């Protein structure tokens, strides 16, 4: 019998029991839907985590002061003054070839004010390369250039949130802004980065590091009272750079082999990886649960097909009497369960994609339609149809035509 005829027969048989077919299909619909939604959701969540850490700048190491230990009580990261501006110059010198850019990042909360509004925000004192490291550009105006960044110019680049708070919809470029009571001129507004792990990225004001030290810290110091961001020339150099920086700084700080480091180097990428791994684990777990529901859907198909075979015993007998071979009968039932599962799979795909889209909107993720997973899920649905349809189909094909013809419904 031709595939086309078989397919037509299957569709007709399923159509004859519309309610039953749709209920059976529902098991597959939800199974596939759940798998798609969970995989798509998982990818969205992972991407969200990735994005958050990418906001910090990719390929960045964060160097901070070590912790002060006095009478056995550790003071916490940065409590010790050990990193000097000379240390930073040494890092910049090109001695360590894996280092591309080095930027200080001094940070403090301060009140900022325009003509008619004020706002408390995070003030960052840094140099021009900071914008490169963070991969953060001005949306309006410009970031400060290398010369301005190294000077004590009273210029500021502000984040979107600050711009909105102080100037509403107006143009802040060229406006005067008071930072901790000191007047600065706004030369740029940064593009929006959105929410990060530490809150709103855009709620910040960037000023040259010297101005920061003069006006916010009050007075120039030998030590760096903040972080140093270091970017590498290549993505995979973090490990090497970390050990080279450690060696250089230990040497400069004249530490003995038995001494602990008096500084810390963190690699946010590692942290991001750990976060991503845990998200991945949860996503996998959910996908497994979804797969179980698909399995249950498959059992539903098998159940209904078994009932269908029994109900149609006489039909099978008649078909066999007029020349249907066992393989014809088997194919007929197999195609029915395949169609059931495939149509259910398609609907499930739509449902899963819809659910994933909704989740993405709800949690603020990017919506991913996992094309590969969708294709696999669809094939799996077909596979479920075949696997769970096989037993009923074989049973049908093994019926004895004489017994089947005599079967009373």
């Amino acid at each position: 019998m031709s595939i086309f005829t078989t397919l037509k027969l299957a569709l007709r048989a399923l159509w004859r029991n519309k309610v039953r077919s749709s209920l059976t299909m529902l098991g597959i619909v939800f199974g596939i839907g759940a798998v798609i939604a969970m995989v798509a959701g998982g990818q969205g969540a992972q991407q969200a985590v990735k994005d958050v850490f990418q906001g910090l700048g990719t390929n960045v190491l964060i160097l901070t002061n070590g912790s002060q230990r006095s009478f056995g009580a550790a003071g916490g990261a940065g409590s010790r003054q050990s990193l000097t501006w000379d240390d930073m110059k040494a890092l910049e010198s090109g001695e360590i070839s894996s280092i591309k850019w080095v930027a200080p990042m001094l940070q403090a909360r301060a009140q900022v004010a325009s003509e008619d509004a004020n706002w408390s925000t995070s003030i960052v004192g840094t140099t021009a390369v900071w914008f490169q490291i963070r991969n953060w550009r001005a949306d309006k105006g410009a970031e400060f250039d290398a010369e301005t960044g190294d000077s004590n110019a009273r210029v500021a680049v502000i984040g979107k949130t600050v711009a909105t708070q102080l100037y509403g919809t107006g143009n802040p470029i060229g406006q005067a802004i008071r930072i901790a009571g000191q007047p600065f001129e706004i030369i740029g507004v940064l593009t929006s980065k959105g929410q990060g792990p530490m809150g709103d990225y855009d709620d910040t004001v960037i000023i040259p590091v010297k101005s920061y030290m003069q006006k916010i810290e009050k007075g120039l110091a030998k030590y760096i009272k903040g972080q140093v961001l270091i970017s590498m020339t290549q993505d995979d150099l973090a490990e090497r750079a970390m050990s080279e920086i450690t060696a250089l700084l230990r040497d400069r700080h004249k530490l003995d082999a038995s001494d602990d480091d008096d500084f810390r180097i963190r690699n946010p990428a590692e942290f991001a990886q750990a976060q991503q791994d845990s998200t991945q684990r949860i996503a996998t777990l959910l996908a497994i649960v979804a797969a179980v529901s698909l399995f249950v859907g498959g059992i539903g198909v098998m159940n209904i097909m078994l009932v269908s075979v029994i109900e149609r015993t006489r039909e099978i007998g008649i078909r066999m009497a007029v020349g249907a071979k066992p393989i014809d009968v088997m194919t007929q039932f197999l195609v029915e369960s395949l169609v059931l599962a495939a149509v259910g799979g398609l609907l499930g795909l739509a449902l899963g994609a819809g659910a994933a889209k909704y989740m993405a909107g709800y949690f603020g993720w990017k919506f991913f339609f996992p094309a590969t997973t969708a294709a696999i899920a669809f094939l799996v649905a077909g596979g479920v149809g075949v696997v769970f349809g096989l037993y009923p189909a074989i049973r049908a094909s093994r019926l004895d035509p004489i017994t089947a013809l005599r079967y009373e419904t």
Partner: protein
Amino acid sequence: MAALIEMRGIERTYVMGDNLVHALRGVDLTIDAGSSIAIMGTSGSGKSTMMNIMGCLDQPTRGNYLLNGKDVARLSRSQLADVRGRMIGFVFQSFNLLSRTTALENVEMPLMYQGLPGRERHRRALRALEQVGLAERADHHPNQLSGGQQQRVAIARALVGEAPVIMADEPTGNLDSRTSYEVMAILQGLVAQGKTVILVTHESDIAAYASRVVTLRDGLVIDDRRQTPVKAEVAA
């Protein structure tokens, strides 16, 4: 005339629980092509087993069955199905039409398994329905047809594959005498066209329409005689 069916020493035993039931105990029978034959016997005589074996629905435990010169006693289930499709058309007492399926589609069914394309199936099924005078009921479902009409659809289904043998198992068992007469007239018409019609019945007035009557008892042929068949003529 060439022998279409040749059975030699056919035995069929069933295992029923702990007992062996000998349904057929060595039947020899030769049927010529284009003849009509009635197989008679009371229930338990083995006539149903006989029909199942002749119709290739069942296989003998011992003996040879040559259908159109080919031994079909040892074929696989699949090969047997193929032989049924090509050689034998069945007509059952209870019609055995698929419900919720039109008369035309019921008639088309055997052709599906011969792999004929849809259009050809359609054409041939319609012609078979015309032969039994039901062309105008082609799109009716079995529950919209009378018993006699249903049996005529079943005959059309038996005819459509152009099988040389029509096996009719109590074809009039569920019909009143007037429609029985009509059905017998159609079957006789088929004999006239060269088909071999095998009637399985326990009613002697149905057997009277055949040109040969074979009687079975306890799994053996006890009587085999030829007769001039009663002619069933359809009242115009």
